[in-house]
């Protein structure tokens, strides 16, 4: 590799690196949205992290760049400025968008399956495994051989030993 080419590659790498550093993670919260009171702003951030963006449904409004997420962030801050409690702000949003707007849905009859479902499946699976092993253990305890079966087996084993020893070199398991 010539010196000039090496220099070009190095420059390119440096450019990529600085671009990556300056771009950083995308910040959805714009500076003009932020409150001057750091305590209120911290509360607003904490609330926003638990509010689902209703357009891009797998993001919270604190991270979403959607227009409506911006509107909701501003709304949350306005409500806090007006002296509302965190719960009152959440209730305000739930009254408009329903429980769906909370990333952590409340525990009630409608969400019972959501909260209890995974544990129920786990318990069912555990019960199934337990029953399976119980059965297998019972099945393993087979009745002892009768005298007749014992003599037959002995005869078979001795006969097999005689022929088996000569063959073991060629046919023995290759383990």
């Amino acid at each position, binding site marked *: 590799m010539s010196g000039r080419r090496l220099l070009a590659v190095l420059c390119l790498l440096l450019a990529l690196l600085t671009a990556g550093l300056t771009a950083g993670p995308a910040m959805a919260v714009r500076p003009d949205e932020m409150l001057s009171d750091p305590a209120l702003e911290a509360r607003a951030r904490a609330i926003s992290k638990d509010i689902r963006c209703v357009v891009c*449904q797998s993001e919270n409004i604190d991270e979403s760049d959607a*227009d*409506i997420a911006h*509107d909701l962030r501003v*709304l949350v801050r306005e409500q806090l400025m007006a002296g509302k409690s965190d719960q009152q702000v959440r209730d305000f949003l739930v009254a*408009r*968008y*329903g429980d769906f707007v909370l990333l952590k849905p409340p525990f009630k009859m409608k969400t019972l399956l959501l909260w209890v479902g995974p544990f129920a499946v786990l318990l069912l699976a555990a019960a199934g495994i337990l029953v399976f092993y119980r059965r297998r253990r019972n099945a393993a305890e087979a009745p002892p051989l009768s005298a007749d079966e014992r003599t037959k087996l002995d005869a078979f084993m001795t006969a097999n030993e005689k022929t088996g020893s000569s063959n073991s070199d060629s046919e023995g398991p290759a383990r």
Partner: protein
Amino acid sequence: MRRSVFLLPLVVLAALLVFFLRGLDPARDPSAIDSPLIGKALPTFSAPPLLADAPGIDSQDFVGGKLHGQVVAINFFASWCVPCRAEHPVLKQLTGELGMPVIGIAYKDKKDAAAGFLAEMGNPYQQLGTDESGRIGIDFGITGVPETFIIDKQGIVRDRVAGPLNPQLINEEIAPLVKELNK
């Protein structure tokens, strides 16, 4: 009991099939959100008029005002919204066939742009307000435009359609509801 255990995989399969078929149902929209507004009085709001010759809209109009005793549709739209363009001609079906007033609210739109959209596409709205900040939209819990709400004679929200209306939806969902509410 032991003999019927061989049926278990079949039962599990049947349960899975029910789930999968439900997932394949084209009418099912997994991202749809039920509106908590349904069955409640419509939110308090006041949208200033968009055009000089058409009145704005206020929640007062529904309770004891000029819209009291009528089944009304409120349609959120915007000139920047492509599905609204597709939906717009269909709104005539509400005013014509169903004979109900349709109220328009221009959501987060510039007045000129919204007025231009109506000049081009026609204006089916009896009253027309603007919601430039989008705050009225939030009070209605809309997630985008177009969205349509059906309000009964007492000013109670009865239905919400998120996304564009189409003739099939109006015939199958809106028309029977409006007929019922008009009884």
